[in-house]
Protein backbone atom coordinates (compact mmCIF):
# COMPACT_ATOMS: atom_id res chain seq x y z
CA UNK A 1 0.00 0.00 0.00
CA UNK A 2 2.23 2.78 1.28
CA UNK A 3 4.99 3.90 -1.03
CA UNK A 4 8.49 4.54 0.32
CA UNK A 5 8.72 7.94 1.92
CA UNK A 6 11.56 8.97 -0.39
CA UNK A 7 9.28 9.01 -3.42
CA UNK A 8 6.96 11.55 -1.89
CA UNK A 9 8.73 14.70 -2.96
CA UNK A 10 8.78 13.73 -6.60
CA UNK A 11 5.14 12.82 -6.97
CA UNK A 12 2.66 15.57 -7.49
CA UNK A 13 0.48 16.56 -4.55
CA UNK A 14 -2.99 15.17 -4.83
CA UNK A 15 -1.85 11.82 -6.19
CA UNK A 16 -1.18 8.75 -4.10
CA UNK A 17 -4.42 8.41 -2.22
CA UNK A 18 -3.13 5.27 -0.59
CA UNK A 19 -1.24 7.15 2.07
CA UNK A 20 -2.54 7.10 5.58
CA UNK A 21 -2.35 9.86 8.18
CA UNK A 22 1.04 11.17 9.19
CA UNK A 23 3.12 10.08 6.23
CA UNK A 24 5.79 12.46 4.89
CA UNK A 25 3.87 13.05 1.67
CA UNK A 26 0.94 14.41 3.57
CA UNK A 27 3.14 16.78 5.45
CA UNK A 28 4.72 17.98 2.24
CA UNK A 29 1.34 18.60 0.70
CA UNK A 30 0.09 20.59 3.67
CA UNK A 31 3.30 22.52 3.98
CA UNK A 32 3.33 23.51 0.33
CA UNK A 33 -0.34 24.51 0.43
CA UNK A 34 0.21 26.58 3.56
CA UNK A 35 3.43 28.10 2.20
CA UNK A 36 1.69 28.95 -1.05
CA UNK A 37 -1.22 30.59 0.72
CA UNK A 38 1.07 32.51 3.04
CA UNK A 39 3.14 33.76 0.10
CA UNK A 40 0.00 35.01 -1.59
CA UNK A 41 -1.11 36.78 1.56
CA UNK A 42 2.28 38.46 1.99
CA UNK A 43 2.40 39.60 -1.65
CA UNK A 44 -1.11 41.00 -1.38
CA UNK A 45 -0.05 42.69 1.83
CA UNK A 46 2.82 44.32 -0.04
CA UNK A 47 0.36 45.99 -2.43
CA UNK A 48 -1.43 47.46 0.57
CA UNK A 49 1.77 48.65 2.24
CA UNK A 50 3.18 50.04 -1.01
CA UNK A 51 0.03 52.12 -1.47
CA UNK A 52 1.28 54.24 1.44
CA UNK A 53 4.55 55.11 -0.34
CA UNK A 54 4.71 58.37 -2.32
CA UNK A 55 2.34 58.18 -5.26
CA UNK A 56 3.06 59.13 -8.86
CA UNK A 57 1.66 62.66 -8.48
CA UNK A 58 3.72 63.28 -5.37
CA UNK A 59 6.88 62.04 -7.05
CA UNK A 60 6.19 64.17 -10.12
CA UNK A 61 6.22 67.31 -7.97
CA UNK A 62 9.47 66.47 -6.23
CA UNK A 63 11.51 69.18 -7.93
CA UNK A 64 11.03 72.92 -7.84
CA UNK A 65 12.68 75.82 -9.69
CA UNK A 66 13.76 78.99 -7.91
CA UNK A 67 14.83 82.27 -9.47
CA UNK A 68 17.59 84.07 -7.56
CA UNK A 69 17.61 87.13 -9.81
CA UNK A 70 15.84 89.47 -7.40
CA UNK A 71 17.92 88.52 -4.38
CA UNK A 72 20.28 91.14 -2.90
CA UNK A 73 23.36 90.42 -0.76
CA UNK A 74 22.30 89.80 2.81
CA UNK A 75 18.78 88.74 1.83
CA UNK A 76 17.21 85.35 2.29
CA UNK A 77 14.17 83.70 0.77
CA UNK A 78 12.31 80.64 1.90
CA UNK A 79 10.79 78.39 -0.76
CA UNK A 80 8.72 75.24 -0.34
CA UNK A 81 10.14 72.00 -1.66
CA UNK A 82 8.49 68.64 -0.95
CA UNK A 83 6.41 70.36 1.70
CA UNK A 84 9.44 71.60 3.61
CA UNK A 85 11.11 75.04 3.76
CA UNK A 86 14.31 75.57 1.81
CA UNK A 87 16.46 78.54 2.82
CA UNK A 88 18.27 80.35 0.04
CA UNK A 89 20.63 83.08 1.27
CA UNK A 90 22.65 85.55 -0.78
CA UNK A 91 25.57 85.77 1.59
CA UNK A 92 27.59 88.91 2.19
CA UNK A 93 31.39 88.75 1.70
CA UNK A 94 31.80 88.93 5.47
CA UNK A 95 29.57 85.91 6.00
CA UNK A 96 31.44 83.95 3.37
CA UNK A 97 34.77 84.88 4.90
CA UNK A 98 33.54 83.87 8.34
CA UNK A 99 32.25 80.55 7.04
CA UNK A 100 35.52 79.80 5.29
CA UNK A 101 37.53 80.77 8.34
CA UNK A 102 35.52 78.36 10.44
CA UNK A 103 36.35 75.45 8.14
CA UNK A 104 39.23 74.77 10.50
CA UNK A 105 37.22 75.24 13.68
CA UNK A 106 36.23 72.38 15.92
CA UNK A 107 33.14 71.20 14.04
CA UNK A 108 30.72 68.58 15.26
CA UNK A 109 29.93 67.57 11.69
CA UNK A 110 33.06 68.61 9.75
CA UNK A 111 32.40 69.96 6.26
CA UNK A 112 34.10 72.76 4.35
CA UNK A 113 32.04 75.73 3.23
CA UNK A 114 33.11 75.07 -0.33
CA UNK A 115 31.51 71.65 -0.18
CA UNK A 116 28.25 73.19 0.98
CA UNK A 117 27.76 75.97 -1.58
CA UNK A 118 28.09 75.44 -5.31
CA UNK A 119 28.45 79.18 -5.82
CA UNK A 120 29.84 80.73 -2.72
CA UNK A 121 27.43 83.67 -2.59
CA UNK A 122 24.30 81.47 -2.66
CA UNK A 123 23.77 79.10 0.23
CA UNK A 124 20.90 76.61 -0.22
CA UNK A 125 19.78 74.76 2.91
CA UNK A 126 16.93 72.57 3.96
CA UNK A 127 15.40 74.67 6.70
CA UNK A 128 14.80 71.80 9.05
CA UNK A 129 16.74 71.51 12.29
CA UNK A 130 18.58 68.19 12.34
CA UNK A 131 17.64 67.73 15.97
CA UNK A 132 13.88 67.17 15.90
CA UNK A 133 12.63 68.89 12.77
CA UNK A 134 11.75 72.45 13.80
CA UNK A 135 12.35 75.35 11.43
CA UNK A 136 15.31 77.45 12.64
CA UNK A 137 15.10 81.24 12.84
CA UNK A 138 17.47 83.53 10.98
CA UNK A 139 15.84 84.21 7.62
CA UNK A 140 14.72 87.71 8.56
CA UNK A 141 17.16 90.44 9.63
CA UNK A 142 15.19 90.81 12.85
CA UNK A 143 15.42 87.12 13.70
CA UNK A 144 17.94 85.80 16.20
CA UNK A 145 20.89 84.36 14.27
CA UNK A 146 22.51 82.46 17.13
CA UNK A 147 26.00 82.84 18.48
CA UNK A 148 27.61 82.10 15.10
CA UNK A 149 25.67 84.56 12.95
CA UNK A 150 23.69 81.98 10.99
CA UNK A 151 20.51 80.34 12.21
CA UNK A 152 19.13 79.54 15.61
CA UNK A 153 16.57 76.86 16.38
CA UNK A 154 14.21 78.08 19.11
CA UNK A 155 12.90 74.62 20.00
CA UNK A 156 15.99 73.30 21.76
CA UNK A 157 18.62 75.97 21.19
CA UNK A 158 20.77 74.73 18.30
CA UNK A 159 23.15 77.32 16.81
CA UNK A 160 24.15 77.14 13.13
CA UNK A 161 26.88 79.23 11.52
CA UNK A 162 26.87 81.19 8.27
CA UNK A 163 27.41 77.96 6.39
CA UNK A 164 24.51 76.27 8.17
CA UNK A 165 26.83 74.06 10.18
CA UNK A 166 25.91 72.98 13.69
CA UNK A 167 28.09 74.71 16.24
CA UNK A 168 26.26 74.51 19.53
CA UNK A 169 23.19 72.84 20.95
CA UNK A 170 21.66 69.37 20.71
CA UNK A 171 21.45 68.96 16.90
CA UNK A 172 23.86 66.25 15.66
CA UNK A 173 24.26 67.31 12.00
CA UNK A 174 24.70 70.39 9.83
CA UNK A 175 21.60 71.75 8.10
CA UNK A 176 21.13 69.55 5.06
CA UNK A 177 22.02 70.85 1.62
CA UNK A 178 19.38 69.52 -0.77
CA UNK A 179 20.36 68.28 -4.20
CA UNK A 180 20.15 71.23 -6.61
CA UNK A 181 21.54 72.32 -9.92
CA UNK A 182 22.04 75.69 -11.58
CA UNK A 183 19.87 75.86 -14.70
CA UNK A 184 21.50 79.23 -15.49
CA UNK A 185 23.31 81.91 -13.47
CA UNK A 186 20.26 82.94 -11.50
CA UNK A 187 17.95 79.92 -11.55
CA UNK A 188 18.34 76.74 -9.58
CA UNK A 189 16.28 73.55 -9.60
CA UNK A 190 16.00 71.83 -6.26
CA UNK A 191 15.46 68.07 -6.34
Amino acid at each position, binding site marked *: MAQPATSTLTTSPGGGRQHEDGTPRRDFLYLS*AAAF*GATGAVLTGW*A*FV*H*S*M*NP*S*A*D*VLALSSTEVSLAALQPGQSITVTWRGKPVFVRYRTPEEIAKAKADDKADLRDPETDQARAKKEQFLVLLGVCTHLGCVPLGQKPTDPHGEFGGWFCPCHGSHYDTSGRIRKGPAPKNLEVPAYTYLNDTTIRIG
Partner: protein
Amino acid sequence: MAKYDYVPSPFMSNPIVKWVDHRLPIFEMVDQQLIKYPAPRNLNYWWNFGSLAGVMLVVMILSGIFLAMNYQPNTLAAFDSVERIMRDVNYGWLLRYMHMNGASMFFVVVYIHIARGMYYGSYKAPREILWWLGLLIFLAMMATAFMGYVLPWGQMSFWGATVITNLFSALPLVGKSIVTWLWGGFSVDNPTLNRFFALHYLLPFVIAGLVMLHLWALHVHGSNNPLGIDAKGPQDKIPFHPYYTVKDAFGLSVFLIVYAYFVFFNPYVLGDADNWIPANPMVTPPHIVPEWYFLPFYAILRAVPDKLGGVLLMFGAIAILFVLPWLDTSRVRSGRFRPAFRVFFWVFIVVTITLGWCGAQLPEGIPLILGQVCTVLYFAHFLVFLPLLGWFERPRPLPASIAEPVLTPAAK
Protein backbone atom coordinates in the same frame (compact mmCIF):
# COMPACT_ATOMS: atom_id res chain seq x y z
CA MET B 1 -26.19 19.30 21.01
CA ALA B 2 -24.55 16.14 22.10
CA LYS B 3 -22.08 16.35 24.95
CA TYR B 4 -18.61 16.48 23.55
CA ASP B 5 -15.51 15.55 25.47
CA TYR B 6 -12.92 18.25 25.01
CA VAL B 7 -9.39 16.91 24.63
CA PRO B 8 -6.97 19.85 24.50
CA SER B 9 -4.59 20.16 21.55
CA PRO B 10 -0.91 19.36 22.25
CA PHE B 11 0.12 23.03 22.16
CA MET B 12 -2.06 23.64 25.21
CA SER B 13 0.59 22.06 27.45
CA ASN B 14 3.23 24.59 26.35
CA PRO B 15 4.31 26.53 29.48
CA ILE B 16 3.94 29.93 27.82
CA VAL B 17 0.45 29.03 26.62
CA LYS B 18 -0.36 27.88 30.14
CA TRP B 19 1.00 31.09 31.65
CA VAL B 20 -1.09 33.23 29.33
CA ASP B 21 -4.19 31.09 29.68
CA HIS B 22 -4.04 31.25 33.44
CA ARG B 23 -4.47 35.01 33.11
CA LEU B 24 -6.50 35.25 29.90
CA PRO B 25 -7.73 31.92 28.52
CA ILE B 26 -7.42 33.02 24.93
CA PHE B 27 -5.60 29.92 23.69
CA GLU B 28 -8.22 27.74 25.31
CA MET B 29 -10.91 29.69 23.55
CA VAL B 30 -9.18 29.33 20.20
CA ASP B 31 -8.61 25.64 20.86
CA GLN B 32 -12.19 24.99 21.92
CA GLN B 33 -14.00 27.25 19.50
CA LEU B 34 -11.86 26.94 16.40
CA ILE B 35 -9.60 23.90 16.51
CA LYS B 36 -11.38 21.23 18.49
CA TYR B 37 -14.78 22.79 17.95
CA PRO B 38 -17.12 19.89 17.16
CA ALA B 39 -18.90 20.38 13.85
CA PRO B 40 -21.42 18.07 12.18
CA ARG B 41 -19.53 15.69 9.93
CA ASN B 42 -21.92 16.11 7.00
CA LEU B 43 -21.73 19.84 6.20
CA ASN B 44 -21.77 20.36 2.43
CA TYR B 45 -20.17 23.13 0.40
CA TRP B 46 -23.12 25.46 0.98
CA TRP B 47 -21.77 25.77 4.51
CA ASN B 48 -18.60 27.43 3.16
CA PHE B 49 -20.34 30.72 2.61
CA GLY B 50 -20.38 31.75 6.25
CA SER B 51 -16.61 31.76 6.51
CA LEU B 52 -16.38 33.33 3.04
CA ALA B 53 -18.53 36.19 4.29
CA GLY B 54 -16.16 36.60 7.21
CA VAL B 55 -13.19 36.74 4.86
CA MET B 56 -14.95 39.32 2.70
CA LEU B 57 -15.61 41.48 5.75
CA VAL B 58 -11.89 41.47 6.51
CA VAL B 59 -10.98 42.18 2.87
CA MET B 60 -13.44 45.09 2.75
CA ILE B 61 -12.23 46.60 6.01
CA LEU B 62 -8.56 46.31 5.02
CA SER B 63 -8.93 47.64 1.48
CA GLY B 64 -11.26 50.32 2.82
CA ILE B 65 -8.80 51.56 5.40
CA PHE B 66 -6.07 51.92 2.80
CA LEU B 67 -8.45 53.66 0.40
CA ALA B 68 -9.53 56.03 3.16
CA MET B 69 -5.91 57.13 3.50
CA ASN B 70 -6.21 58.68 0.04
CA TYR B 71 -9.89 59.58 -0.17
CA GLN B 72 -11.22 63.10 0.45
CA PRO B 73 -14.83 63.40 1.63
CA ASN B 74 -15.51 66.76 0.06
CA THR B 75 -17.83 67.35 -2.88
CA LEU B 76 -15.18 69.40 -4.65
CA ALA B 77 -12.45 66.81 -4.23
CA ALA B 78 -14.10 63.40 -3.85
CA PHE B 79 -14.35 62.38 -7.51
CA ASP B 80 -10.84 63.55 -8.32
CA SER B 81 -9.41 61.94 -5.22
CA VAL B 82 -10.87 58.60 -6.30
CA GLU B 83 -9.42 59.10 -9.78
CA ARG B 84 -6.09 59.91 -8.16
CA ILE B 85 -6.27 56.63 -6.30
CA MET B 86 -6.89 54.87 -9.61
CA ARG B 87 -4.15 56.68 -11.50
CA ASP B 88 -1.40 57.76 -9.15
CA VAL B 89 -1.46 55.82 -5.89
CA ASN B 90 0.72 52.70 -5.94
CA TYR B 91 -1.62 49.76 -6.54
CA GLY B 92 -4.47 52.20 -5.95
CA TRP B 93 -6.47 50.71 -8.82
CA LEU B 94 -6.09 47.30 -7.22
CA LEU B 95 -7.35 48.52 -3.84
CA ARG B 96 -10.24 50.33 -5.48
CA TYR B 97 -11.32 47.40 -7.62
CA MET B 98 -10.96 45.01 -4.69
CA HIS B 99 -13.24 47.24 -2.67
CA MET B 100 -15.72 48.05 -5.44
CA ASN B 101 -16.13 44.49 -6.66
CA GLY B 102 -15.66 43.20 -3.14
CA ALA B 103 -18.99 44.75 -2.18
CA SER B 104 -20.70 42.71 -4.88
CA MET B 105 -18.83 39.57 -3.87
CA PHE B 106 -19.76 40.15 -0.23
CA PHE B 107 -23.42 40.35 -1.15
CA VAL B 108 -23.27 37.27 -3.41
CA VAL B 109 -21.77 35.30 -0.57
CA VAL B 110 -24.22 36.60 2.01
CA TYR B 111 -27.25 36.01 -0.23
CA ILE B 112 -26.17 32.40 -0.76
CA HIS B 113 -25.54 32.10 2.98
CA ILE B 114 -29.06 33.35 3.73
CA ALA B 115 -30.61 31.11 1.06
CA ARG B 116 -28.77 28.12 2.49
CA GLY B 117 -30.19 28.95 5.91
CA MET B 118 -33.66 29.17 4.42
CA TYR B 119 -33.39 25.89 2.54
CA TYR B 120 -32.04 23.86 5.44
CA GLY B 121 -34.22 25.55 8.07
CA SER B 122 -31.23 26.94 9.96
CA TYR B 123 -33.40 29.68 11.46
CA LYS B 124 -35.56 27.25 13.45
CA ALA B 125 -35.34 26.64 17.19
CA PRO B 126 -32.98 26.92 18.90
CA ARG B 127 -31.26 29.20 16.38
CA GLU B 128 -33.70 32.13 16.13
CA ILE B 129 -31.35 34.66 17.72
CA LEU B 130 -28.55 33.43 15.49
CA TRP B 131 -30.85 34.17 12.53
CA TRP B 132 -31.76 37.61 13.87
CA LEU B 133 -28.12 38.53 14.33
CA GLY B 134 -27.49 37.47 10.76
CA LEU B 135 -30.31 39.71 9.57
CA LEU B 136 -28.92 42.62 11.58
CA ILE B 137 -25.57 42.05 9.87
CA PHE B 138 -27.39 42.09 6.53
CA LEU B 139 -29.12 45.38 7.39
CA ALA B 140 -25.85 46.96 8.50
CA MET B 141 -24.24 45.73 5.29
CA MET B 142 -26.95 47.37 3.22
CA ALA B 143 -26.50 50.67 5.01
CA THR B 144 -22.73 50.45 4.64
CA ALA B 145 -22.92 49.58 0.95
CA PHE B 146 -25.37 52.37 0.24
CA MET B 147 -23.23 55.00 1.94
CA GLY B 148 -20.06 53.63 0.39
CA TYR B 149 -21.59 53.96 -3.06
CA VAL B 150 -22.10 57.68 -2.44
CA LEU B 151 -18.44 58.34 -1.68
CA PRO B 152 -16.97 58.41 -5.24
CA TRP B 153 -19.40 61.26 -5.91
CA GLY B 154 -20.35 60.15 -9.39
CA GLN B 155 -23.74 60.68 -10.96
CA MET B 156 -25.19 57.45 -9.54
CA SER B 157 -23.67 58.22 -6.15
CA PHE B 158 -25.45 61.52 -6.01
CA TRP B 159 -28.78 60.47 -7.44
CA GLY B 160 -28.82 57.18 -5.58
CA ALA B 161 -28.29 59.10 -2.36
CA THR B 162 -31.00 61.57 -3.29
CA VAL B 163 -33.56 58.90 -4.15
CA ILE B 164 -32.87 56.62 -1.20
CA THR B 165 -32.78 59.37 1.42
CA ASN B 166 -36.00 60.72 -0.04
CA LEU B 167 -37.65 57.41 0.87
CA PHE B 168 -37.91 58.76 4.40
CA SER B 169 -39.92 61.72 3.19
CA ALA B 170 -42.78 59.26 2.74
CA LEU B 171 -43.27 59.16 6.49
CA PRO B 172 -46.21 61.32 7.52
CA LEU B 173 -45.56 64.53 9.49
CA VAL B 174 -41.89 63.99 10.33
CA GLY B 175 -40.71 62.76 6.92
CA LYS B 176 -39.46 66.05 5.58
CA SER B 177 -37.62 66.98 8.77
CA ILE B 178 -35.97 63.57 8.86
CA VAL B 179 -34.70 63.95 5.32
CA THR B 180 -33.34 67.42 6.04
CA TRP B 181 -31.66 66.00 9.11
CA LEU B 182 -30.16 63.12 7.10
CA TRP B 183 -28.81 65.56 4.52
CA GLY B 184 -27.63 68.18 6.97
CA GLY B 185 -29.00 70.71 4.49
CA PHE B 186 -31.61 71.09 1.81
CA SER B 187 -30.13 68.67 -0.67
CA VAL B 188 -27.53 65.93 -0.80
CA ASP B 189 -24.38 68.00 -0.47
CA ASN B 190 -21.10 68.32 1.34
CA PRO B 191 -22.45 67.68 4.86
CA THR B 192 -24.18 64.55 3.56
CA LEU B 193 -21.03 63.24 1.91
CA ASN B 194 -18.99 63.97 5.01
CA ARG B 195 -21.29 62.13 7.40
CA PHE B 196 -21.74 59.23 5.00
CA PHE B 197 -17.98 58.82 4.95
CA ALA B 198 -17.81 58.85 8.74
CA LEU B 199 -20.60 56.28 9.01
CA HIS B 200 -19.27 54.17 6.15
CA TYR B 201 -16.03 53.89 8.09
CA LEU B 202 -17.80 53.13 11.37
CA LEU B 203 -20.42 50.58 10.36
CA PRO B 204 -18.06 47.79 9.27
CA PHE B 205 -16.77 47.64 12.81
CA VAL B 206 -20.34 47.43 14.07
CA ILE B 207 -20.75 44.54 11.63
CA ALA B 208 -17.61 42.93 13.03
CA GLY B 209 -19.14 43.16 16.50
CA LEU B 210 -22.37 41.63 15.26
CA VAL B 211 -20.37 38.85 13.62
CA MET B 212 -18.83 38.05 17.00
CA LEU B 213 -22.31 37.74 18.50
CA HIS B 214 -23.40 35.70 15.47
CA LEU B 215 -20.54 33.26 16.08
CA TRP B 216 -21.23 33.17 19.77
CA ALA B 217 -24.83 32.27 19.14
CA LEU B 218 -23.72 29.72 16.55
CA HIS B 219 -21.41 27.99 18.95
CA VAL B 220 -24.04 27.56 21.63
CA HIS B 221 -25.92 24.88 19.72
CA GLY B 222 -23.47 24.32 16.89
CA SER B 223 -24.05 24.38 13.17
CA ASN B 224 -27.22 23.06 11.61
CA ASN B 225 -26.50 20.48 8.91
CA PRO B 226 -27.97 19.30 5.60
CA LEU B 227 -30.10 16.69 7.37
CA GLY B 228 -31.43 19.24 9.80
CA ILE B 229 -31.35 16.75 12.68
CA ASP B 230 -29.47 17.21 15.92
CA ALA B 231 -26.25 15.34 16.56
CA LYS B 232 -26.87 12.25 18.65
CA GLY B 233 -23.34 11.68 19.85
CA PRO B 234 -19.61 12.12 19.20
CA GLN B 235 -19.79 9.90 16.12
CA ASP B 236 -21.85 12.63 14.40
CA LYS B 237 -19.21 15.28 14.88
CA ILE B 238 -15.69 16.01 13.73
CA PRO B 239 -13.22 18.62 14.97
CA PHE B 240 -13.31 21.86 13.01
CA HIS B 241 -9.58 21.64 12.40
CA PRO B 242 -8.33 20.17 10.13
CA TYR B 243 -11.56 19.04 8.47
CA TYR B 244 -13.36 22.32 8.01
CA THR B 245 -10.32 24.58 8.00
CA VAL B 246 -9.05 22.81 4.90
CA LYS B 247 -12.49 22.66 3.34
CA ASP B 248 -13.04 26.37 3.97
CA ALA B 249 -9.57 27.14 2.62
CA PHE B 250 -10.28 25.20 -0.55
CA GLY B 251 -13.65 26.93 -0.97
CA LEU B 252 -12.00 30.28 -0.36
CA SER B 253 -9.44 29.61 -3.06
CA VAL B 254 -12.15 28.75 -5.60
CA PHE B 255 -14.05 31.87 -4.59
CA LEU B 256 -10.93 34.01 -4.96
CA ILE B 257 -10.63 32.89 -8.60
CA VAL B 258 -14.09 34.31 -9.29
CA TYR B 259 -13.31 37.45 -7.30
CA ALA B 260 -9.97 37.94 -9.06
CA TYR B 261 -11.64 37.55 -12.44
CA PHE B 262 -13.83 40.57 -11.72
CA VAL B 263 -11.07 42.61 -10.10
CA PHE B 264 -8.52 42.10 -12.86
CA PHE B 265 -10.43 41.38 -16.03
CA ASN B 266 -13.92 42.78 -15.71
CA PRO B 267 -13.90 45.44 -13.01
CA TYR B 268 -16.61 47.65 -14.51
CA VAL B 269 -19.26 45.09 -15.33
CA LEU B 270 -20.98 45.08 -11.93
CA GLY B 271 -21.10 48.86 -11.70
CA ASP B 272 -22.97 51.53 -13.59
CA ALA B 273 -21.26 53.52 -16.35
CA ASP B 274 -22.91 56.72 -15.11
CA ASN B 275 -20.89 56.65 -11.92
CA TRP B 276 -17.74 57.54 -13.86
CA ILE B 277 -19.36 60.93 -14.53
CA PRO B 278 -18.83 63.46 -11.72
CA ALA B 279 -21.98 64.23 -9.74
CA ASN B 280 -24.12 66.97 -11.21
CA PRO B 281 -27.03 68.14 -9.05
CA MET B 282 -28.66 69.78 -12.08
CA VAL B 283 -28.90 66.72 -14.34
CA THR B 284 -30.48 63.38 -13.41
CA PRO B 285 -29.28 60.39 -15.45
CA PRO B 286 -32.07 59.03 -17.66
CA HIS B 287 -32.23 55.72 -15.83
CA ILE B 288 -31.47 55.51 -12.12
CA VAL B 289 -30.78 52.02 -10.81
CA PRO B 290 -29.19 50.95 -7.57
CA GLU B 291 -26.36 48.43 -7.50
CA TRP B 292 -27.55 44.94 -8.42
CA TYR B 293 -27.74 43.71 -4.84
CA PHE B 294 -30.51 46.16 -4.02
CA LEU B 295 -32.56 45.54 -7.15
CA PRO B 296 -35.14 43.10 -5.70
CA PHE B 297 -36.00 45.57 -2.97
CA TYR B 298 -36.03 48.43 -5.45
CA ALA B 299 -38.54 46.48 -7.55
CA ILE B 300 -40.79 46.01 -4.51
CA LEU B 301 -40.58 49.74 -3.80
CA ARG B 302 -41.73 50.56 -7.31
CA ALA B 303 -44.38 47.86 -7.46
CA VAL B 304 -46.62 49.96 -5.22
CA PRO B 305 -48.11 53.10 -6.77
CA ASP B 306 -48.34 54.73 -3.33
CA LYS B 307 -45.18 56.42 -2.00
CA LEU B 308 -45.55 55.49 1.66
CA GLY B 309 -46.92 52.05 0.77
CA GLY B 310 -43.91 51.30 -1.42
CA VAL B 311 -41.47 52.32 1.27
CA LEU B 312 -43.26 50.31 3.93
CA LEU B 313 -43.45 47.25 1.71
CA MET B 314 -39.77 47.49 0.85
CA PHE B 315 -38.73 47.60 4.48
CA GLY B 316 -41.36 44.96 5.18
CA ALA B 317 -39.61 42.63 2.74
CA ILE B 318 -36.69 42.47 5.14
CA ALA B 319 -38.67 42.87 8.35
CA ILE B 320 -40.69 39.77 7.52
CA LEU B 321 -37.49 37.71 7.63
CA PHE B 322 -37.28 38.43 11.35
CA VAL B 323 -40.49 36.49 12.01
CA LEU B 324 -39.63 33.71 9.57
CA PRO B 325 -38.85 31.24 12.40
CA TRP B 326 -42.50 31.44 13.44
CA LEU B 327 -44.07 31.68 10.01
CA ASP B 328 -42.53 28.35 9.08
CA THR B 329 -44.74 25.96 10.98
CA SER B 330 -43.05 22.73 9.92
CA ARG B 331 -41.21 20.80 12.59
CA VAL B 332 -38.75 19.42 10.05
CA ARG B 333 -35.77 21.68 9.48
CA SER B 334 -34.10 20.53 6.30
CA GLY B 335 -35.73 21.10 2.92
CA ARG B 336 -34.24 17.77 1.93
CA PHE B 337 -37.11 16.00 3.66
CA ARG B 338 -39.81 18.45 2.61
CA PRO B 339 -40.82 17.71 -0.99
CA ALA B 340 -43.47 20.46 -1.26
CA PHE B 341 -41.40 23.08 0.55
CA ARG B 342 -38.60 22.44 -1.86
CA VAL B 343 -40.70 23.46 -4.82
CA PHE B 344 -41.84 26.61 -3.06
CA PHE B 345 -38.30 27.40 -2.03
CA TRP B 346 -37.10 27.37 -5.62
CA VAL B 347 -40.14 29.37 -6.68
CA PHE B 348 -39.13 31.91 -4.06
CA ILE B 349 -35.57 32.04 -5.42
CA VAL B 350 -36.85 32.55 -8.96
CA VAL B 351 -39.30 35.20 -7.73
CA THR B 352 -36.49 37.07 -5.99
CA ILE B 353 -34.22 36.93 -9.03
CA THR B 354 -37.09 38.06 -11.25
CA LEU B 355 -37.69 40.95 -8.88
CA GLY B 356 -34.03 41.83 -9.26
CA TRP B 357 -34.42 41.89 -13.03
CA CYS B 358 -37.56 44.03 -12.78
CA GLY B 359 -35.69 46.45 -10.54
CA ALA B 360 -33.22 47.14 -13.32
CA GLN B 361 -35.89 47.97 -15.92
CA LEU B 362 -37.91 51.11 -16.44
CA PRO B 363 -41.02 50.82 -14.23
CA GLU B 364 -43.58 50.44 -16.98
CA GLY B 365 -45.21 47.70 -19.04
CA ILE B 366 -44.22 44.10 -18.45
CA PRO B 367 -41.47 44.76 -15.86
CA LEU B 368 -43.89 46.73 -13.72
CA ILE B 369 -46.65 44.11 -13.85
CA LEU B 370 -44.15 41.28 -13.38
CA GLY B 371 -42.68 43.17 -10.45
CA GLN B 372 -46.09 43.48 -8.85
CA VAL B 373 -46.87 39.79 -9.36
CA CYS B 374 -43.52 38.82 -7.89
CA THR B 375 -43.96 41.18 -4.95
CA VAL B 376 -47.21 39.41 -4.11
CA LEU B 377 -45.48 36.03 -4.49
CA TYR B 378 -42.59 37.18 -2.33
CA PHE B 379 -44.84 38.03 0.57
CA ALA B 380 -47.15 35.09 -0.07
CA HIS B 381 -44.18 32.78 0.39
CA PHE B 382 -43.81 33.92 3.97
CA LEU B 383 -47.39 34.72 4.88
CA VAL B 384 -49.32 31.99 3.04
CA PHE B 385 -47.20 29.17 1.67
CA LEU B 386 -44.84 28.57 4.59
CA PRO B 387 -47.54 28.56 7.32
CA LEU B 388 -49.80 26.29 5.28
CA LEU B 389 -47.02 23.94 4.19
CA GLY B 390 -46.33 23.07 7.80
CA TRP B 391 -49.88 21.77 8.09
CA PHE B 392 -50.41 20.09 4.76
CA GLU B 393 -47.01 18.80 3.79
CA ARG B 394 -46.08 15.24 4.69
CA PRO B 395 -42.30 15.22 5.29
CA ARG B 396 -40.22 12.23 4.41
CA PRO B 397 -38.90 10.13 7.29
CA LEU B 398 -35.82 11.55 8.95
CA PRO B 399 -32.67 9.45 9.34
CA ALA B 400 -31.87 8.18 12.81
CA SER B 401 -28.58 10.06 13.07
CA ILE B 402 -26.10 12.06 11.06
CA ALA B 403 -23.63 9.18 10.99
CA GLU B 404 -26.18 6.77 9.53
CA PRO B 405 -27.97 8.57 6.73
CA VAL B 406 -27.84 5.36 4.72
CA LEU B 407 -30.60 3.86 6.85
CA THR B 408 -33.11 5.94 4.95
CA PRO B 409 -32.42 6.70 1.31
CA ALA B 410 -31.43 10.34 1.36
CA ALA B 411 -33.53 12.53 -0.87
CA LYS B 412 -31.64 14.42 -3.50
